[in-house]
Structures are given as C-alpha cells and as structure tokens.
C-alpha cells in the first residue's frame, strides 16, 4: 500500500448518524430491489396487497348487502390500504437486525464500525417504505378506478395528507427501532416481528372498523395507538367530506388529531429509543451481537 494516511478525527455524532443512515439506505435498496425475478416482485408488491383488499371488499359487500356507496366503504378501503405501511416500515427497520446477524453475518462488523446503529437500522427501512408506498398506491388507484372510492385529487387536502404521512412514517420507523431492539435479544427469528406486531394491532387501530365495535375494555388499546389517529388523518385528508362515517374520532378537529398524533409519536419515539438502548446494552452484555442460530 502506498498510503499511510490515518482515518480522520472521529466524526461528530450527527455526521456519523447521517452517514450511517445514508449508506444503510443504499444497502437496503440494493437488497430490496434485487428482484432476480420481476414476477416475484409483482406478486409481492401488487398481487398480494390487491388480494388483501379484494378479500376485504368481498366481506364488506356481503355484510353491507352490496352498499358500496356508503361512506363506510372508502373508510375501510383506505384504512386497509394505508395499513400496509405499518407492517412494511416496522419490518423494514427491525428485520435488518435478524438479516444482518443470521443471513449475511455482518452485524458484528457493523457494530465494530463507527456506525450509529439506530440510524443504520432506520436507513435499512427506507427501501421497504418505498416498495410499501408502491403497494399502497396500487391499492388506492385500483379502488378509485374500479370500486368508486370517492377520492378526488382536486379536493384532497394534500398539505394535511403529507404532513400526517410524514409524521406517521417517522412514528412507525421508531416503533420499528423498538422491535429491532427486541430482535437483538430474541433467538427465534422464524417470523417477521414487524409483520406480526402489525397483524396484532390491525384490529385495534380503527383500520377497518370503528373502535366502538371492540369490547369496552379493549378500546383503550386503540386509543393509545398513534396509528389510530394517523389513519383517521390520512382518510380525512383524502376524502374529508365523509368524515362522519366512523364515529370514533368525529368530535376531534384535524388540528387536534395532528396534535394527538404528534404527542403520541413523541412518547412512542422516546420509549423506542429507550428500549432500543436497553436491548442494545443487554445484547452486548450477553454476547448476542454475533449470535447465530443454525437453521
């Protein structure tokens, strides 16, 4: 080697975080976009979400006696479509832990490098957010074109939409970080913890039915979930005029909902960072950073 230059002085915390995030985004995209088989990609990103939506539509049709003009329909349809993000983003962030540790066997090298691991994991999730967005858009476009979901782009409140979307994605990414911390500690890796948690919370978030349907003692779970307010805001911003379809949050104004979403996001964000740090610490103590289960 001709060079003997040493690495520069330690980068600042922010610089290091940004660097970790940026490179991790690149890596995540390389992995996610590695569709050796475009057909599989189509199945995963188009057919699967559409099939999910179709099941919902059929069930709605049966229960409502085919009343697709009811404002309840776009509510359910959009709630279900945006809920795709919940699993995608949470999985995207948390799965990187398992993937790097078990599959690529690189997690220990990441940990030994000057990387901010939370920033790294968040970066790894970006690609899933993008492919998730694709699924969400496909689902919504299909709803507008074929099922008369009354979404008029000219009447939508785009400012509110993107504000809520941004806030929600950040919130989901932080929850993904929390799950990533837990993934560091668990040995069983045979399922996607992100998708599993998303599935478990599906019924508590008002995605496809109002919280009033739940038994009274379960409702607080729904009210404590930032997803509940997030989905409501997204729906209102797109099809605001049918806001009364779900009674749950009808008494809140958009601004109030935004405030609640922001507040809950901050609370969950702080909890996530705390939990992640704790798990990270425990993982180092127990020697789990390079643990592999032989499967």
């Amino acid at each position, binding site marked *: *080697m*001709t*060079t*003997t*230059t*040493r*690495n*520069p002085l*330690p*980068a600042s915390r922010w*610089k290091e975080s940004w*660097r*970790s995030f940026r*490179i991790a985004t*690149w*890596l995540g995209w*390389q*992995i996610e976009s*590695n569709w050796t088989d475009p057909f599989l990609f189509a199945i995963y990103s188009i057919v699967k979400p559409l099939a999910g939506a179709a099941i919902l539509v059929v069930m709605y049709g049966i229960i409502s006696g085919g009343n697709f003009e009811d404002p309840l329909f776009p509510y359910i349809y959009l709630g279900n479509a945006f809920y795709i993000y919940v699993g995608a983003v949470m999985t995207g962030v948390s799965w990187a832990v398992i993937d790097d540790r078990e599959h*690529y*066997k*690189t997690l*220990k*090298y*990441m*940990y*030994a*490098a*000057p*990387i901010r691991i939370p920033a790294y994991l968040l970066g790894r999730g970006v690609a899933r957010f993008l492919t998730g967005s694709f699924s969400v858009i496909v689902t919504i476009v299909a709803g507008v074109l074929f099922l008369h979901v009354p979404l008029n782009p000219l009447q939508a409140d785009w400012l509110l939409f993107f504000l809520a979307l941004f806030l929600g994605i950040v919130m989901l990414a932080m929850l993904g970080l929390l799950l990533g911390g837990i993934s560091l500690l668990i040995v069983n890796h045979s399922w996607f913890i992100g998708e599993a948690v998303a599935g478990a919370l599906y019924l508590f978030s008002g995605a496809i039915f109002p919280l009033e349907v739940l038994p009274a003692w379960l409702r607080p779970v729904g009210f404590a979930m930032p997803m509940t307010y997030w989905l409501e805001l997204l729906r209102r911003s797109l099809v605001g005029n049918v806001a009364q379809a779900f009674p749950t949050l009808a008494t809140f104004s958009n601004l109030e909902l935004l405030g609640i979403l922001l507040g809950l996001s901050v609370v969950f964000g702080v909890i996530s960072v705390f939990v992640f740090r704790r798990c990270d610490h425990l993982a*180092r*103590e*127990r*020697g789990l*950073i*390079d643990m592999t289960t032989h499967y």
Partner: protein
Amino acid sequence: MSSLAIETQDLGRIYKIRGSKKEKKIRKELVALADVNLQIERGELFGLLGPNGAGKTTLIKILTTLLAPTSGQARVSGFDIVTDAARVRPLINMVSGGESSGYGLLTVRENLWMFSQFYGLPSKEANRRIEELLKMVGLGDRIHTKSSDLSTGLRQKMNIVRGFLTDPEVLFLDEPTLGLDVGASRDVRNFIRHWLEVDETRTLLLTTHYMVEAEELCDRVAIINQGRVLACDSPAVLKRRLQKDAIFEVATSPLNGLTGAAIEALPEVRTATAAEHDGGATLNLILVEEAALAGVINIFTQRNVRILNLSKREPTLEDVFIDLVGRSMAEVEEGGQDE
C-alpha cells in the same frame, strides 16, 4: 496518552448459560476469560495461541466493543473499550475467519466500498485502495463478481481485505486462515507481514490455533488455555524455556495399553503425550535429561512395544504448550473444557 496499542487489566468474562428447559433455574457459569493482563505495543504483530474454546474469540469480541467484559478493563489505542467505545471504533477493524460473511447480492467492490463508507473514507480513495488490496491478495480479476458467486475461500479473502481497507490503527484477525487451503493461507500471511512492514505504527492482534502460524508470523505470542494466559513472550524466548530439555519424537508399534501418563510417571520425564493410529503410535517426550530415555526404553521393552523410529528435535511452540498445560492442543480440544 499511552503508547500501548492494546492494554488489558485483569480482564475477565463469564458466560451465563441457561440449562435445558427442565432445569431452567440452574444457571451454569462458564469462565471464558480470567484475569487477562496484556500489554501490546504499537507496531507489534501479536498472536493469541490456544486450542478451540480457549477464549480467543471472546477476547477479540471484548476488544472490538462487541461484548462487555464481566470484570477488569481494557484500552485500545488509549481509549477504554466500554466507556469510550465510540472513539475506539473508528480506529480499529476486525475480521473473523472460517465464515462467509458479506452481502451476496453485491459485487466484491460494492461490499468493500460500502464498509469503507461507514468509516468516512472518501469514495475515490476507497476505490483506489480496493483495487490495490484485491490485487495483492489475488482477487484483482474478481472485483465485479457478485460475492455470492465466490468460493468460500475467496469470500474469506474479500473479508480480509475489508479489514485492511480502512487502514486501522489496530486490526484484529480472528483465525484469519481458518478453512483456507495452503496456498491461500500463505497469501494471507504474506499480506499480513507486508502490511505491518509498510507502516511501523500499525498493530495487529491475531488469534490462531495453528502453532506454525504463530511461530512464523508473530513478534510475541500469548499462550492461552481455559481463559487464562499461561505465558507471553516472543516465540524464541518461549522455546528457550525448553532448551535444556531433551525433546524426542518416537514412533512405535501399538502401545498395548501403555499410556502417556504411565510414561510421565517415570523419573525425569516432564511430559509424554501419545497419539495412537493404525498399527502404531507416535509419542512426544519432553525429558528433563537425555538419560531419562533409558527408563522409557525400558518400559517399552517390558510392554513389548517396539521402537520404529526415534528422533531428537528442537522445541516448538507445541512443546511449550504441552509443557505449560500438560496436554497437547489436540488433546485439549478432544477433551473439551471440562475438569
């Protein structure tokens, strides 16, 4: 600031092992490292030599901030590996042998480039070094190959390049030649030597359970067994301990129940290890005095064991290990961690 590259004080690590489901409450403790005190100067090529399970990887994991010690302290490049971990990491790098890590869907260049970026290496400089290093280990023509298409050995070479790429102040290599064929091992050893020659401030800590590797490469070697450092010095000085002893290798007919322990019980026999194989056995004898050989030959005669070949030889690190532990590394590995 300390001029030492690595310094450990009474470093210890205990693993808590959960019992099987039935005996969940019984928590066993395994001492993987105990009271390790090492002082490694900048510019040294330092070797940790010990059998499987000795605690070598555990030590490397602690020094590279992946694992918390349960007792004691350690500094790398002057920074505490627990309280100042974030300042240690930019200065070090680490490679484990015997595994094929990396992102299979990326090319060799992409894999390496990505890791260099985490260290803040300018992209152009990174690419220049990648080409140079790959050429040096004989991977120059594979730069655009997807790493999943590489053989395990070549992947390991790529991984080794990843370690050197960021030009760390202290580089940790955990069994770098494990699983490599003879030629590739030699390439890697030559490369390691060259890297240290070019810049005298570079430090390398290498673990191995190949005696020859430690002997041939390292400035100093710590012999480690069951988590304890038993001796630490240059290979020459370590071997000098045995200089006065007479070391013999004896090939015999089958031992007919005669054991190393029985021979060891003879006067003036320091250690005797026996490895039986088809139709015979090979014994390694370390005698305090050459005259003790008479007693050994005597016992052979009694047991009807014929000597097929007998040669005296210079001490090796293997002999040093046997002298320290009482068993050969192979025997320790077979016997496991018990007792």
